[in-house]
């Protein structure tokens, strides 16, 4: 039994979880840093408790403070969301030691999968195929460089360096030319140390032209471990997914069964409990290789929910409460696509952007789901991840889902902060996206010199006219409230050297 869930996260995933708690009739506790006061997620909880401290380390990553709040307010479960403490085995252990339910797998499973080298070895032993590559155990920079240079000759180019404790593209470097290897090792190690406090790196063959396909798994404490089909998340920028879909356009029933079985084996190898994702590279010849397992709810979980009809967060709550999962047999229907709206400048190497959400009008209508933690009037700050929202569509077929996504993106109006909306919109028109020939190199292949929007003269002329009319009619005076409702001197326009979103 669970009565009160503390959500140790913020933004859209906190909203997602808090709503699930509310729907499940559970009390919930939101925790928030000072700069998140008034955020949407703080309003969706039964109570919202402020965190003391200025940095992320002092707030959302502060295990002791979070456990104290949980104890003070009677939380009997903690949901970590994704990011932050979600894959910290020591936190999971501390939560359990405090007599609180940890909504996630055991600390042991997190540890086994969190360290990429251990995970690779565990998977090899369990008979799950892994990518050709080598683990580099060396801790000091010089030793690591020589070990990687040596290994690189066996692994072959192009190769990929990855932080052993990494995730989200941090500490990751692609190397095509041996001449760049040493600088790449240094950069990856530096970033890995800064982000994870662990400079270990491993090297593997870069399988170009492959698809990133991942399998959603669920395991309860009543002996059931199942998979919920796949998601394809090949389209990535800076190693971060921006366009995710289910099913994978090239999937067959047979391949799904084999990948699903491998994913279930992977989960069972670490006695997995809860929701998790086993990521694979799917080569163009149909071979697939284990990449890593994410021992938490995934950003892109909604596409699986849309096609399978499962509610993954509700299942997490059920499983953590010791109940059997409610999912029946796998029954995928139609097609779902998610795009991630980032506050970023797609014309300038996807550099994060900040500013006020002076206008934030999301599309509505059939087959559209928006998971967001922001609202019009909110400020996008450099404090956290620049993801503003996930726009998810469902339609009976992939073609119709793409049509729906185009329509939804055309209707989405965000003013005041540069976003990637137009980039995503044009992505939906790309030939390879339309035909499903997506792979992990798509964005750099299609826009090797960066992306710039294409628009007609008539659109540009109209926009100039609109600016002139807005100015003439004094619309900025009536809108003053909106643009200036924010404190602080942040003005993105002084500094972004290109202004096209």
């Amino acid at each position, binding site marked *: 039994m669970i009565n009160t869930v503390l959500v140790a996260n913020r933004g859209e995933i906190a909203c997602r979880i808090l709503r699930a708690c509310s729907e499940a009739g559970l009390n919930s506790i939101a925790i928030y840093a000072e700069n998140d006061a008034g955020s949407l997620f703080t309003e969706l909880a039964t109570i919202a408790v402020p965190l003391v401290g200025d940095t992320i380390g002092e707030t959302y990553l502060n295990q002791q403070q979070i456990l104290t709040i949980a104890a003070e307010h009677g939380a009997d479960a903690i949901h970590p969301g994704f990011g932050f403490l979600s894959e910290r085995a020591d936190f999971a252990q501390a939560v359990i030691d405090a007599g609180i339910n940890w909504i996630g797998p055991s600390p042991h499973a997190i540890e086994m999968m969190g360290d990429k080298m251990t995970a690779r070895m565990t998977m090899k032993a369990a008979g799950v195929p892994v990518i050709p590559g080598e683990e580099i155990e060396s801790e000091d920079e010089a030793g690591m460089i020589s070990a990687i240079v040596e290994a690189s000759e066996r692994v072959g180019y192009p190769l990929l360096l990855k932080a052993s404790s990494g995730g989200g593209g*941090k500490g990751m470097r692609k190397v095509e030319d041996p001449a760049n290897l040493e600088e790449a090792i240094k*950069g990856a190690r*530096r*970033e890995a140390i*800064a*982000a994870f406090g662990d400079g270990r790196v491993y090297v593997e063959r870069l399988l170009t032209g492959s698809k990133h396909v991942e399998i959603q798994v669920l395991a309860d404490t009543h002996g059931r471990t199942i998979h919920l089909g796949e998601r394809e998340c090949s389209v990535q920028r*800076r190693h971060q997914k921006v366009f995710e879909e289910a099913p994978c356009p090239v999937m067959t029933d047979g391949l799904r069964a084999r990948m699903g079985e491998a994913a279930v084996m992977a989960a069972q190898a670490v006695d997995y409990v809860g929701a998790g994702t086993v990521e694979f590279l799917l080569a163009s010849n149909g071979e697939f290789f284990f990449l890593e397992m994410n021992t938490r709810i995934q950003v892109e979980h909604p596409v699986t929910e849309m096609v399978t009809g499962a509610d993954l967060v509700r299942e997490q709550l059920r499983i953590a409460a010791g109940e059997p999962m409610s999912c029946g047999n796998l029954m995928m229907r139609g097609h779902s696509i998610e795009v991630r709206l980032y506050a970023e400048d797609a014309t300038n190497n996807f*550099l*994060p952007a*900040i*500013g006020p959400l*002076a*206008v934030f*009008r999301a599309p509505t209508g059939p087959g559209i789901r928006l998971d967001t933690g922001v609202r019009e009037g909110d400020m996008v700050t*450099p404090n956290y*991840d*620049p993801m503003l929202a996930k726009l998810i569509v469902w339609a009976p077929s992939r073609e119709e889902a793409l049509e729906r996504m185009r329509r939804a*993106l055309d209707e989405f*109006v965000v*003013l*005041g902060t*540069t*976003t990637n*909306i*137009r980039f995503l*919109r044009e992505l939906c028109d790309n030939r390879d996206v339309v035909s499903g020939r997506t792979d992990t190199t798509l964005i750099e292949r299609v826009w090797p010199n960066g992306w710039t*929007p294409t*628009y*007609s003269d*008539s*659109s*540009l*002329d*109209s*926009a*100039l*006219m*609109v*600016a*002139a*009319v*807005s*100015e*003439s*009619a004094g*619309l900025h005076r*009536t*809108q003053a409230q*909106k*643009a200036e409702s924010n404190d602080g001197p*942040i*003005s993105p*326009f*002084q*500094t*972004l*050297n290109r*202004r*096209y*979103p």
Partner: protein
Amino acid sequence: MMHEFKINGEMVEVTVARDGQDWLLGEYQARVLTDGRIMVHTTDGRSRIAHSAKVGDVWWVHIDGHIFCIEKTEAGSADGDSEGGMTAPMPGKILEVKVADGQTVEAGELLLVMEAMKMEHRIVAPTDGVVTKVNFSMGDQVQQGDVLVEMGE
């Protein structure tokens, strides 16, 4: 009414005339709706609705699924901002400085590496030129908008 705007680095003068409730620009017509959005009629007979919002000096305009950022400038004023200056896109820390004062660089050449929002950002030369001043050293904290490197011809 005449307005001077800057878009895409270029200055543009736009003059709109008022005709009752309508605004005119050549054969284009526009009208401000009661909720503050603007309906534009163009010569092809289509009418489209635009959203606009001014933040600082910049009009953000959404039309046809595109967003345009159009800076209102005072007629005759200097073209103020960071032309030729590489500025910090957000608060962060300098990780590496790759160039020195007086050094000749090519467009695209790496000038320095900074860390912000837990990612490394590479600041590159926008054009061929000469570095006239490097304002920060490795390890320095920079604020958003700080000019990192100044360049001349």
